[in-house]
């Protein structure tokens, strides 16, 4: 038998706005493509750390294969956002930068850059997105079926340690000071 009805007064979008934790950490990558798994692995280990510590309540961890337009909706109601991905060309062990909304080449594709996601946010909400940063963890090998490389593993450990520091000081002004120019 069907359970009895209950009625929500708020729509999905309204509830997204009122319920979301202040900080969104959004990691991308394909776990089956070597060091492209850095993003999802980062999130997995951060989740384990959160469980051990139990004091990062206002943080949401979200993984996806690649950034797409609807991630702009995931940014709604946030005070701060951190995009995490494997980087192929940046410095090792990682690069931490401030992001600004931008319409770049990824804009018309199925896989957006973090800057393009911020731009979509701006377009659909007619407002500035929350302060957003990118943590690009340096990877070396991205072939299908490869395991995480030892270099990437070391970079991941360093990136996690840095993120623990970020989580101790969850404000854009402090993160700005720590960001690479």
């Amino acid at each position, binding site marked *: *038998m*069907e*359970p*009895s*009805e*209950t*009625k*929500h007064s*708020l*729509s*999905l*979008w309204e*509830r997204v706005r009122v319920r979301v934790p202040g900080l969104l950490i959004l990691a991308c990558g*394909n*776990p*089956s*493509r070597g060091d492209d798994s850095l993003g*999802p692995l980062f999130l997995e280990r951060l989740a384990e750390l959160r469980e051990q510590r139990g004091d990062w309540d206002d943080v949401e961890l*979200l*993984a*996806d*294969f*690649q950034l*797409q*337009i*609807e991630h*702009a*909706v995931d940014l709604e109601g946030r005070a701060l956002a951190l995009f995490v991905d494997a980087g192929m060309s940046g410095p090792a062990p990682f690069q931490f930068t401030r992001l600004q909304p931008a*319409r770049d*080449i990824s*804009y*018309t*594709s*199925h*896989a957006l850059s973090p800057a393009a996601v911020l731009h*979509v946010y701006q*377009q*659909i909400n007619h407002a500035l997105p929350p302060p957003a940063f990118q943590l690009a963890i340096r990877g070396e090998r991205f072939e*299908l*079926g490869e395991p995480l490389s030892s270099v990437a593993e070391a970079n991941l450990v360093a990136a996690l340690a840095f993120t623990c520091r970020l989580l101790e000081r969850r404000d854009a002004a402090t993160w700005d000071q720590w960001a690479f120019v």
Partner: protein
Amino acid sequence: MSALETAAHPERLCRVAIDPLSRVEGHGKVTLLVDRDHHIRQARLHIVEFRGFEKFIQGRPYWEVPVVVQRLCGICPVSHHLAAAKAVDQLVGAKEITPTAEKIRRLMHYGQTLQSHAVHFFHLASPDFLFDFDDPTAHRNIGGVMADFPDIARQGVRLRKYGQEVIRVTAGKRIHGSGTVPGGVNKALTLQERNYLLTDLDLMTQWARNILKLIKQAYALNPGYFTHFATIRSNYLSLVRDDRALDLYHGGLRARNDKGEILFDHLDYRRYAQVLREQVKSWSYMKFPFIHSLGPDKGWYRVGPLARVNNCDFIATPLAEEERREFMALGEGQPVHLTLAYHWARMIELLHAAEAIQELLLDPDIFGDELVVRGEMTREGIGVIEAPRGTLFHHYRINEDGLIEKANLIVSTTNNNQAMNESIRQVAEHYLDGKELTEPLLNQIEVAVRAYDPCLSCATHALGQMPLHVELVEESTGEMVDCLVRDADGTVRNEAFPLPLGAG
């Protein structure tokens, strides 16, 4: 098959390449061979098929497959998840899964169809409908749509998000979900989850109806263009339900010829190899499937929304059925062959997906507790599903230890390989031939490819931003005499005479 597939003397012709790259879906490019009078002599779409994955899953235990195959594609992981799950059902002897399991899977699948069709139309294809071909490339993209039609762009994002929420709720999480397990699913819905998904559904349905109105308006404004652009006559292949209704999750294989006559019907998809063959061509990495009884020249077919709407006898949800009837009137008793009608059919399916989600959410079976059935193990399993882009085949054989011994995946883009080639040749012949090649003309090739929404559509939609080289070669010496380059950032320059275009 078009005469433009292979030129008589390719060495004497100028080569034009539209060569995009993409992250996970494979690579694709279009090459044109053009003579000095600008006549197109050869047009080919090359797609690098993603075959490595079949090797990758060999040796893995069968129960891992529905989860692992989601990593095949970042665009429609749920299609691969469900096609693999249906194959694994057969491996574990689950001849019929429980009503709860089937309805949860259907819900997941319709959620995926809704989000995939939404992102394709609103964010990749809508510029083709809303802006002219000669609109500046910097504007003729989703950025321009957001600036000029902000409501449409916003609806696209929200529809996409809604579909993702359906997937998250049914699969447990948004990606790498393990919603299906061998022989069923691992969870039913809770009342709270059901109510959460119902809340905004009327809005999604209304937006789907609105976009159909927009498409019909665009068609009415320029019927000649929609009727002729990239249009080809073809056979059509899809699943249909037992009562011949549109069904995206399960059914028998049905094929029609270009006149609408049934070639085969209700064929058990596990017998697909009896009716379909794959042809190899020296110039392409991707195979060319065809209906065996018709042979490779006449047996190629189309799959996807256009094929499904053409193939079914009706749609079981009322609003989408009303739209289907209006759509089919275009064909005057025959299938609708208009390639741009893929978008129209896609939006009919989007509306159907919204209606089907509502029906499923109101069905008490989704709260059931009978989730899994098992039977006698078998060594071979074949799962077929109508993915957003078309019919998707997953075929596995396992050894006595339950490890994958052999895998064969035929993806939608492969099924449409010959059809996409035929469409670009039609465009080349009717819109490009004899003209000096310009960017807007080359963009028309991309519009044709994009109608099919192949997995590389993300790349082909990077209008004005794909690396593009146009070389004019002296026939007698083979020496390049001119070269037009479009860089990834959209800058167009002449490499032989390096002044910015328009500077002289």
